């Protein structure tokens, strides 16, 4: 309890890291619900890895064009954002386009995307040995290195994502649940699919930059998988997913601070523990429910 109180103090030294954690924990599940419902879970694995490849590529290009320079400046941060978004959005649109041509081997394409992205990340890092250590930190997502400026920027972007998700919630639901009906109704399904993918890509890109691929993937999937077992309505599903993500991010942060653990993995572990508890509870509830006559 004392840890919680300390963390909530206005002058807490890691306040920016806490805010960044909770922001990622609140918003990633809101796009994660669509990954779960549209059965694109593997995409939630591949896209953070693509984002990481984009970061490594952009920094390598920056070095190639500008020559050797100390890493860590504001230009690096901007290049990292650009690389992350370009690779993530490019990958998601390409996979969506291939999916439209045929659903066969979807998992294979996503798996290959993950493998290729992982390999490219390492290759780009190997080509930039002067900045490898810094780039590795960037790829891990240094929540602890968050600053007031970076958190403000992250908050603005994620706020825009949330507003768009809420504003067009019925369109996203329609194209996801019954794509054919959306076409019959004359909705521009390509536009709505593209916008949904764009919001997913932006969230993942900024999530990876702030918290790394592991945390981003964890918050994309674990909270919605837990919430799915507790809710009956779509809006409640989204809200509970977000709440679970935010709370587990906060609890994970407190646990990591209290016991001096790695922040990102601790948050993911707390999120996974919640999923496990909810899953066990759901099974028990079903087992104990009276059987119909």
């Amino acid at each position, binding site marked *: 309890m004392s840890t919680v109180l300390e963390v909530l103090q206005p002058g807490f030294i890691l306040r920016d890291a806490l805010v960044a954690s909770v922001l990622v924990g609140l918003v990633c599940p809101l796009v994660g619900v669509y990954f*779960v419902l549209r059965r694109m879970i593997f995409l939630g694995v591949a896209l953070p890895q693509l984002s990481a490849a984009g970061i490594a590529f952009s920094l390598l290009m920056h070095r190639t064009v500008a020559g050797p320079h100390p890493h860590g400046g504001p230009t690096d941060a901007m290049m990292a954002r650009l690389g992350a978004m370009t690779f993530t959005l490019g990958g998601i649109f390409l996979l969506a386009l291939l999916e439209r041509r045929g659903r066969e081997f979807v998992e294979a394409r996503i798996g290959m995307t993950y493998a290729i992205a992982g390999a490219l990340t390492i290759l780009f890092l190997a080509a930039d040995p002067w900045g490898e250590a810094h780039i590795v930190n960037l790829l891990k997502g240094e929540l602890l290195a968050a600053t007031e400026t970076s958190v403000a920027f992250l908050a603005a972007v994620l706020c825009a994502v949330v507003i768009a998700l809420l504003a067009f919630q*019925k369109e996203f639901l329609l194209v*996801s*649940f019954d794509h*054919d*009906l959306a076409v019959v109704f*004359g909705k521009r399904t390509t536009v709505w699919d593209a916008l949904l993918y764009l919001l997913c890509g932006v969230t993942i890109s900024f999530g990876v930059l702030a918290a790394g691929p592991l945390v981003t993937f964890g918050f994309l999937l674990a909270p919605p998988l837990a919430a799915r077992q507790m809710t009956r*309505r*779509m809006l409640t*599903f989204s809200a509970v997913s977000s709440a679970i993500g935010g709370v587990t991010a906060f609890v994970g942060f407190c646990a990591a601070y209290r016991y001096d653990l790695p922040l990102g993995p601790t948050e993911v572990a707390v999120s996974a523990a919640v999923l496990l508890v909810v899953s066990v509870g759901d099974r028990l509830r079903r087992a104990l429910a009276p059987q119909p006559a």
Partner: protein
Amino acid sequence: MCLLRLRDVSLGYGNRPVLEHVNLELARGEFLALLGPNGAGKTTLLRGIVGLLAPMAGSIEYDLDRRASPLGYVPQRETLDPAFPLTVFEVVLMGTYARLPAWRRAGAHQHRVARHALELVGLPALADQRFADLSGGQTQRVLIARALAAEPSLLVLDEPTAGIDADATAAIMGVLTRLNREDGLTVLLVTHQVRVLQGIVKSVIWVQDGRAVRGGLEDMLARHAVAAVL
């Protein structure tokens, strides 16, 4: 008055036509069925009519503004994913999205329309139930309610009675018949169950060997020796 006209339409997948030179008209207030053997192209024709499949040749013309008067479409229920956490009411409410622009949320009027649609199919008590927990017959009626929530001029159904029991089939056909006779709703449905059409449908479209031909129900059944199956 003609609501729908197909002029020399060809429909198919890739470069392979499934149906060719289809010429049909559907009048307002008609109740028409698409019949034919498995794989003949009934669903293909239906998908072309509702706009899910672009014609390879010819034209499909509507005598209505599809924005002001959307089509009501009832797909085969296996196409919907039970993983979505939706109540019956939420599914029916989706039908009202046809008339709503992107920036407007479903309000009190849309909620009233959805509740009325559920009453029309006799399922107001199931509004709060999970859609995924319904029986086959209940699911089909909810999907009909969803289509009715669009307040359509034309209701198009793809095998609405497939895989459900006789009581549920009778209930569904009763709803459709009542809407057609009392409200003048134009209905077009695909079915394999010829028995359910007798006493309700006078004309059918028989789909076979790449063609779609219109005729009287009894005449078509006699021509295609289906009476023995009945």
